[in-house]
């Protein structure tokens, strides 16, 4: 792996630890305050089909990959 990639990977691990660690520092969300989070709109990608369609469009029109998950398929659209 190139140094640049290695550097990015290290940065990522630090970022994950920072986010996970900050979770302990902030005030804990009580169970009775979990109402909004139960809603279907409170997710990173509320519509699987829509985000799948967008991922496919941008994958074929741009040079980057990477979203919320793994898997999915390739296509000849490069």
């Amino acid at each position, binding site marked *: 792996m190139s140094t640049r990639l290695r550097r990015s990977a290290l940065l990522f691990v630090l970022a994950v630890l920072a986010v996970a660690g900050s979770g302990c520092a902030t005030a804990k969300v009580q169970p*009775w305050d979990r*109402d909004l989070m*139960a*809603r*279907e709109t409170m997710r990173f990608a509320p519509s699987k089909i829509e985000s799948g369609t967008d991922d496919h469009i941008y994958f074929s029109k741009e040079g980057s990959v990477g979203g919320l998950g793994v898997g999915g398929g390739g296509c000849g659209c490069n």
Partner: protein
Amino acid sequence: MTPPTLERGEDFWVGRFAAMGGPCEVLLDLDDRDEALALVACAQDEALRIEHKFSRYRADNIIDRINRAGGEPVEVDAETARLLDYAALCHEMSAGRFDITSGVLRRVWTFDGGARVPDEAALRDVLALVGWERVTWRTPVLTMPPGMEIDLGGIGKEYAVDSAAALLARRTSSALVVNFGGDLYATGPRRGGRPWAIGVDDPERTGQGVLDRVDLTRGGLATSGDARRFVTWQGRRLGHILDPRTGWPIEGAPRAVTVIASTCLEAGTLSTLASLQGPGAAEFLRDSGVEFRIH
């Protein structure tokens, strides 16, 4: 199953149906009639589902299986397990006054306003079948001595209110109130930020007088009361809330105690625990820091 009725209020819909042994209502702060009907139907489905699952009057549900197990262990599902965990917590916190095995006491007490009280021997025999501490509960298996029964009536309705409200809240962002026989939950303020105006019914004059009014924007509200079913004995009026430790009614419990809390179940539990304190109800609620009304 009779479909619910739908009526238009000032700027909200009111759906009504019967479940859990009484009248049920859903108030919806929206305008679309079809959406309102769908939501009320959903609340009705959930109320009936919980009623059928946990009612002690049905011959085919988990409660019946538990009550007829004759001492054999019974494995329960996740939802029943959660309710049993909750009941166990209430038993522990009330030092035994809240007890879901106390239902068998109804065999010796009849609260019809008359003067009949059980004799000592009969009461002693029944008391031998009361006591959550006699039950072995290790999730998900419940083992109960034969002859004992559990009755989730004390938490079932409040649980149904919260569950139905949560289900509806996932389907609509409009504010709504789920009210099953006086135990209710409001998901948020009406349009314009206005609260829901809840009237506390006067138990002496049902449907005619309102003792108090609560403005509720979000949260649960439950009322526990000793007014309607009672026995008169030696010139004293004994309410129907029994102390499972003695088998006798709690004396001096308030006629009606209304608690407002973050969920209907919490409100109902606190109002029941307060009533179980008898004359100490008001102090108990004051100490807990919760909003309440006592009459």
